[in-house]
């Protein structure tokens, strides 16, 4: 594995937003938890971490037990503690939210995880070797979760990752403000101790063939994520920066990241918000988010929207970019048209229609697009059945190819893609794979 790059943003203005809870803060917060039975927070958590249990263990200073409780349900507990949209999940379901402040579950989870990582606590030992080999393609959250769960059960797992570093979006795609690279890589290191073999620079369809994998492994798990950022198909698109690359550079090579003075971010999802945050925090004087629908339809979480408004980012809703104006290779302006909302489209949201004669220019010198990622291209490459372009899986996460399983963003045809959903996919797929391999001898 490649060493962690030294030139990365962890101490600049993109360093972790929330400070860790002090021991006393954690104790007070833990005491506030009512310890609900069959708790709604646990129900709301896609990985169903026994939240009251780990919180009360913090209260009794059993941090080792607390960390174990978390990791038993979710091997990427340190990442999820930071990146989960807790307002929509555990904290959103907290019974204290009705009249009080919900328990800060995410931050308490981070407290327990930080303890485990800071103290090098080794919580799991792999079971007796089963002599079964599984290939996991893609070392993002779904892949790591699946690989870790399988390794715990005594299987021999090889993780193939096309990038230099494992961790997937945790390493490359989540703004450092929420998750520093170190956290993602520490998680990879912890899982490696379970005996995972991680091979980086290996990409299915390039230097890795599915047939070989099927021949050499007892099962394959695809956790390949999504493709590149969607194409806008407008003149001058070559001047537009890719949002995911923008985030990646801010995490791994921040010193060489050029930030415009006036920046436009196209899109209004969570990635777009991350891009706008980076631009704003690293020196842009004006950041505008451009979105073709209205505030109501934007896909970013409500708390993210609130956050970015506080950062001082502007919004231009019902605005569609049509053309980039550049001079001598540098961006001058973004031509846009106004939109109006029509009847619902395939996504169920009102379809935006251009307003005739409404074209106007936004004066900018940097444009970043974060308009969603392409569907996984591997699906067609491997001849897998798909569902709305995503890899289709059954209830046991098996694809249309027997013995080939999939999980994570690449199967997320329904619902919001998130790290924690990917972790749960990996965990459940690992169970299915284990059952299959054990049952079939």
């Amino acid at each position, binding site marked *: 594995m490649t060493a962690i790059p030294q030139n990365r943003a962890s101490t600049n203005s993109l360093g972790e937003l929330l400070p860790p809870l002090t021991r006393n803060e954690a104790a007070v917060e833990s005491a506030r938890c009512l310890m609900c*039975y*069959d*708790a709604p927070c646990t*129900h709301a958590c896609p990985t*169903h971490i026994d939240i009251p249990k780990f919180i009360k263990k913090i209260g009794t200073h059993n941090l080792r037990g607390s960390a174990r409780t978390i990791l038993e349900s979710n091997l990427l507990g340190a990442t999820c503690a930071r990146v989960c949209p807790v307002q929509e*999940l*555990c904290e959103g379901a907290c019974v204290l939210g009705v009249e009080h402040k919900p328990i800060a579950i995410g931050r308490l989870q981070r407290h327990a995880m930080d303890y485990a990582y800071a103290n090098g606590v080794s919580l799991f030992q792999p079971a007796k070797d089963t002599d079964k080999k599984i290939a996991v393609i893609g070392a993002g959250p779904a892949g790591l979760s699946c690989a870790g769960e399988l390794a715990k059960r005594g299987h021999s797992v090889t993780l193939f990752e096309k990038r230099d570093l494992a961790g997937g979006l945790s390493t490359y795609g989540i703004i450092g403000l929420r998750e520093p690279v170190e956290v993602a890589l520490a998680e990879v290191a912890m899982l490696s101790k379970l005996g995972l073999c991680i091979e980086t620079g290996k990409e299915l369809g390039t230097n890795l063939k599915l047939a070989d994998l099927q021949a050499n492994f007892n099962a394959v798990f695809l956790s390949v994520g999504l493709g590149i950022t969607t194409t806008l198909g407008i003149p001058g698109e070559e001047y537009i920066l890719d949002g995911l690359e923008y985030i990646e550079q801010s995490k791994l090579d921040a010193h060489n990241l050029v930030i415009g003075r006036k920046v436009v971010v196209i899109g209004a999802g969570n990635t777009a918000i991350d891009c706008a945050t980076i631009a704003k925090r690293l020196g842009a004087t004006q950041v505008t988010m451009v979105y073709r629908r209205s505030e109501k339809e934007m896909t970013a979480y409500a708390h993210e929207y609130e956050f970015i408004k506080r950062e001082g980012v502007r919004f231009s809703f019902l605005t569609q970019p049509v053309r980039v104006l550049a001079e001598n290779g540098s961006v001058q302006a973004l031509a846009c048209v106004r939109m109006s909302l029509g009847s619902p489209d395939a996504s169920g949201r009102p379809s935006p229609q251009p307003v005739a004669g409404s074209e106007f220019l936004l004066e900018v010198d940097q444009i970043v697009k974060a308009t969603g990622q392409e569907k996984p291209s591997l699906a067609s490459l491997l001849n897998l059945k798909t569902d709305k372009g995503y890899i289709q899986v059954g209830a046991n996460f098996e694809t249309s190819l027997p013995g080939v399983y999939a999980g994570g963003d690449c199967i997320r045809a329904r619902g919001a893609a998130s790290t924690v*959903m990917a972790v749960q996919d990996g965990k459940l797929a690992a169970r299915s794979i284990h059952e299959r391999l054990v049952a079939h001898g």
Partner: protein
Amino acid sequence: MADLSINFAGIRSPNPFWLASAPPTNSGLQVHRAFEAGWGGAVWKTIGAPVLNVSNRYGAWHYGSQRMLAINNVELISDRPLEVNLREIREVKRAWTDRAVVVSAMVESKPETWHDIIRRIQDTGADGIELNYGCPHGMSERGMGSAVGQVPEYCEQITRWVMDVAKIPVIVKLTPNISDIVMPARAAVAAGANAISLINTLNSIIGVDLNTLEITPNIGGKGGHGGYAGPAVKPIALNMLAALGRDPVVSGSKLPISGMGGISTWQDGAEFLLLGASSLQVCTAVMHYGFRIVEDLCDGLSNWMDEKGFAKISDVIGQSLHHVSDFNNFDLSFRAVARIDQKKCIRCNLCYVACNDTAHQCIDLIAKDGTVVQPYSYDIRASGKDDAISTRPSVHVREEDCVGCRLCYNVCPVEDCIQMLEEPSGRPPVTWKQISDSQREVTEDWEKMKQYREKMGIHIH
């Protein structure tokens, strides 16, 4: 506005709240400041025999985020020279004629020693004397404090010596470290004491340090039992106070009782008054928050008295005593059932698990469609706040099976969410005493008991 002033065995004070004999009344400087804050009286920290103290003398029990739910201490009586204490007592009393200045005393168990200390206290102009028969550590090992309080005969003997020379009211302070609090109280009555106070601290070990395996607090590698006080002991104190109020000898003597043991708020104080205390002493709450708390003690008590129509403290004293009784006299036909207010319920399910695991299994989880469901019955793939909230079952009491144990009511974190509804049982009132007097066999033979239940229609599932 209610009149908070009291006359306790002849000792007057503008309000019933006195500082108990303890570290807060260790010096004239402190008592001056306390009186400035509004305290009605102060019982000076016990003076008497020479002593030396140790460090790490206070331990504390914290629970959840509540600091100092109880304190324990191995501090001895005043370690300041007797002459200094007596001089300061005189100065304080001279400056604060309207406040109660009571002096706690403890000396060796000899008549002449007691005579001497009582005379010297009286010379200061103090309003009263409290005899410390309660200190459970250190002094007891020297034959004083609780070593006296635990033996009613010693109590009586020493109190008699004191009464021989006492010209001001004498209060006998009782130790709770005894099986029947009534016995030493009767001894005080027999010896002619003017008043009783209770409770002193309880024997306790606060804990063990899990790193060093030493006792907490650690005093040079050792630790041991110390006096336990604070909010945690209040129910014990209330019970002992009520026991005195219900004893014909003690209550018949009409001796006033100064109540203490965990009083932290005006509500606590009001409860002590209602169970028969006529002055109130406070220590741990002051050691936690300072003298300033007396303001709300008085303000809250006064407002409550106004609301309830009590004009003066004596109207409050003992008003709840007649409600205190023994199990033998409780109405076995009295029936209460729990009812959950669905509008207030936050669905924490604490009542459900308490009832289901440890009580009588009569709370059900009911799904939206009206069916009874088991906990954790959601799909493993379900997630998100909307799913968690919208599919969460509600908790309902099967009232026909509810024995009215009140556990759910006690665990519920929401105010007024669970009510204990009093419902007619349809049976005539009857006490265990009545049954055992009229149908003794029912109380001695399970077969007869079964028949009795059948006859009365008592079904316990």
